[in-house]
């Protein structure tokens, strides 16, 4: 026996839980901090969305004047993307990636804590514009020269806050890549890593290479606004299209930063709830890498109508992305094919992701075609497309991950009936809110307006969309009740409630601070499946792990 006896009490000492959470460098606690922080910003940005939809429900200016409306959609977009979706997925990455690799923690635990704590700071800076004469109001894309000429410090706070959030992302990306390359357990070769880890790896590379370019652009914008620089303002010799190039050189990889980890989540869930291995593991990995590579060559498809980009090239490269994405879609469908489907809540959200992301992907290919794009540029068609990708894709992925990994994080399983109520209201509300926007866009309704004419014929669809938005808000209520009630008195989950394939289910729920007492042998991308089902090269009996866990009452109680 090469192992030593375990003495968990030897190095633990008591301190207040507040101090413990504020100073923690444990990747699991930091992951939970990420997720909690992300949901707080989600609720704030969600309230802004409800304000926007209420204003647009009927023609006329109801209660948001135009300046307030501009601030509302700018903050909504910025916060949802940079402080909800990306950090929420990073939070699951933080919690799950070391566990799936069989590692005790991330490669740089203290840098990990730094990357988290920069986030609330950056987010509060962005929001604090409201306290100093109005938040940024130029849209989440911050187009110059509008941004150059915007009055007030709201835009400066937006720039500084985004720079901090970007720095947090870059440090996090360094940490993920180092963890994945240096911290894998013996036997965990690259091609035995779970797909979620692969998607986090490609995402981290995209963050590492794309985000600094945005930082450079934000700094240039800050110099323009505060030190008399002339990067972007044509009245002093600058070039406003340059901002668009810089922003979208970051902004398009950013789209994949947002969607790839959600694809990873879905690729973890579908096999478990179909009781089949993922179809075409290697094809999926190569498709993920291909999407990452292509994402750096498509940024100017956001700029077709500027007249200063090469339309055929960017249109062609954009359409090419449909190929690896299509491969993934076939992988997922073939995984479901003839599987023994278990329609638990994580699976419902994963299936919701498949169907909604498919719609967003198809409208994306439509927009890649310049003749269509010229007509629907800056209309609600684009708003519909991006919400089907970000919300129907990524946010469904976030909720799927929440229902799937909550038992691992807390030791308690979220209530299934409440979860299903959440899913169905959420799913129907989402489609009511965003599907009509396709038609509104084709009818010519421009985005970023607070009012429209009653004669335009847009009133009915706008009302439907507003009803849908409020349904989404209502669907969050059972979710919150579920989380709180489960946390207080939920059904104990056990170590492996879903009969999973990957290593995070091989430890207790929640895992001890050091993650694993022992690891099962790793001979495939499904080490736990082969352990529990006694198939293949498994050297140990499945009950070994069970017995070990039961011998240790402190782990059983989830104290760690």
């Amino acid at each position: 026996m090469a192992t030593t006896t375990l003495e968990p009490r030897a190095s633990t000492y008591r301190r207040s839980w507040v101090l413990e959470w504020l100073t923690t460098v444990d990747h699991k606690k930091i992951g939970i901090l990420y997720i909690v922080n992300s949901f707080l910003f989600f609720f704030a940005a969600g309230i802004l969305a409800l304000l926007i939809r209420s204003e647009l429900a009927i023609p006329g200016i109801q209660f948001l004047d135009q300046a307030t409306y501009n601030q509302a959609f700018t903050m909504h977009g910025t916060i949802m993307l940079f402080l909800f979706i990306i950090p929420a997925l990073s939070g699951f990455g933080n919690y799950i990636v070391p566990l799936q690799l069989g590692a005790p923690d991330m490669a740089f635990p203290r840098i990990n804590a730094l990357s988290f704590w920069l986030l609330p700071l950056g987010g509060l800076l962005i929001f604090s514009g409201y306290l100093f004469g109005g938040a940024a109001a130029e849209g989440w894309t911050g187009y110059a020269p509008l941004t150059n000429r915007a009055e007030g410090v709201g835009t400066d706070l937006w720039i500084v806050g985004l720079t901090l959030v970007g720095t947090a992302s870059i440090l996090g990306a360094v940490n993920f890549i180092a963890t994945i390359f240096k911290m894998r357990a013996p036997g965990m070769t690259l091609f035995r890593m779970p797909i979620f880890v692969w998607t986090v790896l490609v995402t981290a590379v995209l963050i590492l290479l794309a985000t600094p370019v945005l930082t450079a652009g934000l700094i240039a914008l800050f110099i323009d606004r505060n030190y008399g620089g002339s990067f972007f303002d044509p009245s002093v010799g600058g070039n406003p299209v340059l901002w668009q190039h810089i922003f979208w050189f970051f902004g398009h990889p950013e789209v994949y930063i947002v969607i790839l980890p959600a694809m990873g989540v879905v690729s973890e869930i579908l096999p478990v709830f179909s009781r089949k291995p993922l179809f075409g593991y290697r094809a999926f990995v190569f498709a993920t890498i291909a999407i990452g590579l292509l994402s750096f060559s498509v940024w100017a498809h956001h700029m077709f109508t500027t007249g200063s980009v090469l339309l055929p090239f960017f249109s062609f490269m954009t359409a090419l992305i449909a190929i690896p994405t299509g491969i993934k879609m076939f992988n997922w469908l073939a995984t479901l094919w003839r599987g023994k489907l278990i329609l638990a809540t994580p699976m419902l959200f994963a299936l919701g992701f498949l169907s909604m992301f498919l719609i967003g992907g198809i409208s994306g290919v439509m927009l890649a075609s310049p003749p269509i794009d010229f007509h629907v540029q800056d209309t609600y068609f684009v708003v519909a497309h991006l919400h089907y990708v970000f919300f129907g894709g990524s946010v469904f992925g976030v909720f799927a991950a929440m229902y799937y990994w909550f038992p691992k994080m807390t030791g308690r399983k979220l209530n299934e009936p409440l979860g299903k109520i959440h899913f169905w209201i959420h799913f129907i509300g989402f489609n009511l809110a965003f599907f009509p926007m396709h038609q509104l866009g084709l009818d010519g309704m421009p985005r970023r307006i607070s009012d429209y004419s009653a004669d335009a014929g847009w009133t009915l669809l706008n009302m439907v969309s507003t009803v849908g938005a409020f349904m989404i808000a209502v669907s969050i209520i059972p979710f919150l009740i579920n989380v709180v009630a489960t946390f207080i008195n939920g059904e104990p989950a056990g170590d492996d409630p879903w009969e999973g394939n990957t290593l995070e289910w091989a430890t207790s729920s929640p895992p001890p601070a050091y993650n694993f007492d022992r690891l099962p042998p790793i001979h495939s991308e499904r080490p736990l499946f082969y352990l529990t089902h006694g198939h293949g090269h498994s050297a140990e009996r499945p009950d070994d792990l069970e017995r070990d866990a039961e011998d240790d009452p402190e782990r059983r109680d989830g104290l760690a």
Partner: protein
Amino acid sequence: MTTRQMQAHPAGEHEAAAAIQHGDSGMPTALLGMLLFIASEVMFFGGLFATYFNARATTPGAWGPPEGAHELDIALAGALTAILIASSFTMQFGVWAVRRGDTGKLKMWTGITLALGVLFLMGQIYDYSQLGFGIADGVFGTTFYTLTGFHGAHVFGGAVGLTIILARAVRGQFSARNHVAVEAVSMYWHFVDVVWVAVFSTIYLLR
């Protein structure tokens, strides 16, 4: 039982980490982290260079300091370039010294490198004071000061790193086997020098 079984617990985290990295004979994790960070810095300067080239390509008329200001002092900039390139060599001599276990030479070479870095920064400040145009004076001024200024800020960051290395070397914290921080800071310092060569070539030579 086989080596596939392993245990991790707080008291033995280093052993656990070592066990987890078994079979992985690559660069130290800290060095990989620094390399990845440098990759992101390359993209950051890539963004700034893109603004410079875009401005140069789209600005009509002559490219250079505004009317009435002094021409760029290429002799001074050339001297600063020589100083920075020399500092890369002295840094590397320090790294080779500590790899041999010669911490005395490490202190000497790190001190010389730090002095050269500070000399570079002082020269740059002097250059700024003599140019007679500012960041608000046209597109050239904006891009010139942004590129050289952010490079200078990175030299300053490198000098802070060198100061920490020097202080730790004086306290005897490095040896032939344990000096990953020296390697990491030296990598960063070389990177900052390479960026300066690119900045110098772009602004002063590609006129």
